[in-house]
């Protein structure tokens, strides 16, 4: 049977203009590899939005697979900005193949 390892997946909903900033923060926490998924619309405390090109601050979903330590380090780094940047963060355990990569 193929061996898998338990790692963390971290999904962060973030305003599109702040994406590069988040990527830098993640890299500083040694989470260099990531993927960005499009998000179409949403509703939060600041109201509804829809990615129509203009007129709204659109969101993206930052997704990274990494290990516990690095994810903790990233959360530590983000902590002071989570509220003001309105980040929506979810961390969960996943099984990965090629565990040494993450």
């Amino acid at each position: 049977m193929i061996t898998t390892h338990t790692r963390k997946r971290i999904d962060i909903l973030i305003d599109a203009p702040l994406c590069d900033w988040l990527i830098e923060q993640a890299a500083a926490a040694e989470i260099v590899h990531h993927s960005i998924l499009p998000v179409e619309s949403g509703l939060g405390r600041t109201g509804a939005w829809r990615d129509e090109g203009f007129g709204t601050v659109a969101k993206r979903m930052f997704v990274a697979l990494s290990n516990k330590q690095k994810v903790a380090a990233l959360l530590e780094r983000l902590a002071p900005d989570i509220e003001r940047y309105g980040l929506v963060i979810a961390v969960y355990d996943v099984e990965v193949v090629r565990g040494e990569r993450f």
Partner: protein
Amino acid sequence: MPAFETLLSPVILFFVLGALAAAARSDLSVPEPLAKSLSLYLMAAIGLKGGVQVSQAGFTPQLLQVSAAGMALSFALPLMAFALLRGFARLDRLNAGAVAAHYGSVSIVTFVTASDALTRSGIAPAGYMVAVMALMETPAVITGLLLARGSGTLSRGQRGKLLREVLLNGSVVLLLGSFLIGLAIGKTRFEPIAPVFVTGFTGLLCLFLLDMGLIAMRRLRESRALNWRMAALGIALPLVNGAIGLGVAALLGLDPGTGAALAMLAASASYIAVPAAVRLALPDADPGIYLSMSLAVTFPFNILLGIPLVIQLAPLVLT
């Protein structure tokens, strides 16, 4: 009745159609990639046309004067806006600075619609106004930021990013780049691409303004942060800034069309480039405030009333 005429143009009527559809909660919507594609197209088109015009009219000292005046306006207009936003709308320092940055900058669509209307009224603005617009887009961000946070609070990395934003923002690059291309190719070599960039222009502008009507009205409907004081300023600021722009145009001795265009640039507020920059540089400011004021109040006001007004006034003030 040139003002009434303006309102009966298909461009404006499509804007109204979009706004009504959104107000009635119709599910009409324009795909986001089409909206972005049309805005790229409009920028390339007006850049090219401006450049070709300057290639024929030649460089004049006026071009430099107006460019300098435009940049000065972009730097300075946020100051008075800031005072009004603090005093009248009672915004905190942070949000007042953020909003002020938008009003110092410009709305490309407002400019394009105004140029179209001015041209149809027989007072086309000078071609170089496109370059002036590009130059006015981003300086206001600097003033707005300094107002919001005081100087010295920017880290070196942030300052670098801000400068990049000011100089290399996509719309600045595309506008100035197309302007230079138009300048380089001149009228003859422009001919093969004129069907797309000139003949198709007004029709595509209709589709774009349909979308802007939808978006502006949806923004208005969903803006919880907007109170009547902010809404009032969303109408007062374009009037004040437009008057200042017209005054500067008079001082520079501009012709009515060119002066009216400068006035509209001053009167308009950004809702594409600046919000993105401000979201990054002033994350604690509330996008609900600055987007709603510039997009949901000032933009429709300028399209529906500001442009007809300046078409009436410019020929009286500038002669």
